[in-house]
């Protein structure tokens, strides 16, 4: 009742209106909307005009159009957010994160790199995900594999995947495989970092490709081995998830954002093991970030209050657990609901543990092109159209040309 009285007590002119766009739909969209509603209920002087802005690519186009026509939202939840703040010289968020209420140091250090442009923070990591190595429990059981001591390195994993493929065919199909991945560039970048390759080289503010060095070629050569030893099908990555869910694939690397949905489906018997590695454990981060695009200072401050609210331990962890994204704060893991999720669901435990080894490179303008070129390079080497070295060299050359403009 007090809330109702409070709402009517606020003169209409005193209300602040913030426009919010978000690039997540389904359960994630609903969870995000619930948080926005919660903010409005707690802050009657603020009205949030929120809307779904399409998927990541669509939102990028929508934001680009809105920026040049001065109709951009105050807050956006999107992928590659730093390209729309840092790249425009807007580092407002960097000036706010030392706010004691925000508890900057509570956020995983690796996660911060996902919110940087030119080495400076210009976004707040939010719907963060990592690649997770899932397995089909029925296949592993049939193959007689014990994953209590999971393979640590990719070479060890290759042998396990081969055994699963040879002995674990539960559907009797000829189209049965040991391993596949849904997002090729994401896993490849993870593997590169595990092999002590930095993917890109940064000197000052200059970025250049680094994935084509000797360590990169080693990773690409291992990738080709997965094909040559017939553990992974050639160029079937777009169907990998369907194959996995149909019981025709033993191991799948896919986003941690699948955990929530797959856990709710009782017909799916899926587990996860820590990501194997080459020289050091590491997983590349993905997902979305919060950015502030308000024009005037007052709106920026109001937008920051909203961002702070969305990214606090309780709210961000709630969002993470209801969507399958990961908690960005260390304190999130000590919340009862997070503890319960880890205890009751081994996949959450694996994904949360990986946050300690999560890694990202700074955002740069051509990073989308880089992923595209890496995907093409992997496709070429899978089809034996190019050697691993030649494929990476070509991708690096084309990326450098793109960077040079």
């Amino acid at each position, binding site marked *: 009742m007090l809330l109702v009285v409070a709402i009517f007590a606020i003169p209409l002119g005193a209300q602040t209106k913030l426009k919010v766009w978000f690039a997540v*739909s389904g359960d994630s969209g609903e969870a995000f909307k619930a948080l926005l509603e919660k903010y409005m209920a707690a802050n009657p002087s603020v009205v949030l005009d929120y809307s779904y802005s399409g998927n990541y690519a669509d939102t990028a186009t929508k934001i680009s*159009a809105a920026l040049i*026509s001065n109709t951009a939202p105050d807050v956006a939840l999107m992928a590659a957010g730093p390209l729309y703040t840092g790249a425009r010289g807007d580092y407002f968020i960097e000036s706010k994160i030392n706010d004691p209420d925000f508890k900057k140091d509570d956020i995983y250090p690796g996660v911060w790199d996902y919110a940087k442009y030119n080495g400076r923070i210009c976004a707040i990591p939010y719907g963060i995900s990592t690649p997770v190595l899932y397995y089909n429990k029925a296949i592993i059981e049939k193959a007689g594999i014990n994953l209590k001591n999971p393979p640590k390195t990719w070479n060890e994993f290759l042998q396990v995947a081969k055994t699963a493929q040879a002995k674990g065919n539960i559907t009797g199909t000829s189209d049965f495989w040991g391993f596949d991945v849904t997002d090729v560039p994401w896993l490849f970048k993870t593997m590169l970092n595990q092999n002590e390759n930095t993917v890109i080289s940064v000197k000052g503010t200059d970025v250049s490709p680094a994935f084509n060095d000797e360590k990169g070629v080693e990773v690409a050569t291992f990738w080709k081995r997965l094909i040559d030893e017939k553990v992974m099908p050639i160029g079937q990555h777009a169907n990998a998830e369907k194959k996995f869910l*149909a019981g025709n694939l033993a191991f799948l690397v896919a986003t941690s954002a*699948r955990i929530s949905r797959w856990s709710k489906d009782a*017909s799916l018997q899926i587990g996860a093991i820590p990501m194997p590695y080459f020289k050091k454990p590491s997983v590349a981060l993905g997902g979305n970030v919060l950015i502030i695009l308000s024009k005037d200072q007052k709106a920026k401050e109001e937008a920051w209050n909203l961002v702070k609210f969305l990214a606090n331990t309780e709210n961000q962890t709630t969002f993470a657990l209801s969507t399958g994204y990961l908690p960005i704060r260390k304190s999130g893991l000590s919340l009862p609901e997070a503890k319960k999720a880890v205890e009751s669901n081994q996949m959450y435990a694996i994904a949360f543990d990986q946050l300690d080894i999560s890694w990202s490179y700074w955002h740069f303008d051509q990073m989308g092109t880089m992923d595209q070129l890496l995907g093409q390079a992997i496709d070429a080497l899978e089809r034996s159209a190019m050697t691993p070295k030649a494929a990476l060299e070509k991708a690096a050359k084309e990326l450098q040309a793109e960077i040079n403009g």
Partner: protein
Amino acid sequence: MRKHRHVRYPWTMLFLFCTSALMIFPFVWMLLSAFKTPADVYNYPPKWIPSSFQFTNFAEVFKKIPFIRFYINSIFVSVVQTVLQIAISAMGAFAFAKLDFPLKNKLYAFMQSSLFVPEIVTIIPMFLLAAVAGLIDTYTGLIVAELNCAFTTLLLISFFQSIPNELIDAAKVDGCGYFRVFLEIILPNSKTAIGAASLFAFLTHWRSYMWPLIITNNVKMRTLPIGLKYLVTETGTEYQVLMAASVMAIVPVLIVYILMEKEFVQSITLTGMKT
């Protein structure tokens, strides 16, 4: 004689049967998937017939998105756009086909060349204009910017050229001005072409996604293609629900096609147009 045609051309019939099957396959798959359980959707080898018919998939669509609102918006926007586009295209086509005016050939070439420009290239400047004109989140903004008349104008020009000039001259002798010639001679003799052009225009507007997404922020203003995208999520897609929504989404298109099938086929024959 006619009923034995399939016996006389068995290979042609076989080829047509195979290509028809290829075209129909995705629609049959969509229809059957709309009734499947999640387990059926991912089953391998693929399960054609659902293990149990899940009519709840259709109900789920209405729970997850404001489907009726999207539907009404799509019908309203597509119909108004089609009517406006055909009206403008028909008048333009009449001018190009039957009148002489300065820069006619250059304007014709300019119109043709506009077909080669991808939508994504023009979308940001168009949005800028729409924002300046205050058309964001309005039906006017949704409708006007997508009146892409070039293709339908070119289609109608080729048909209008086939109408004998003598017919127009006779009308002029009887005292008709250009507008009456257009209304009473050109239009009544072009029902087939106008029907086909309307079908093309309606289909284009019905499935338009990018512009409606860019120009609208308010969920109440959005159209079906954006609504379907709400069902595709980053954390996984419920294909059976998406298919149920898609089945409902194609109903108006089928109705329009059934109503205009005759005109469409005749127009292809008369204008030599291929899609």
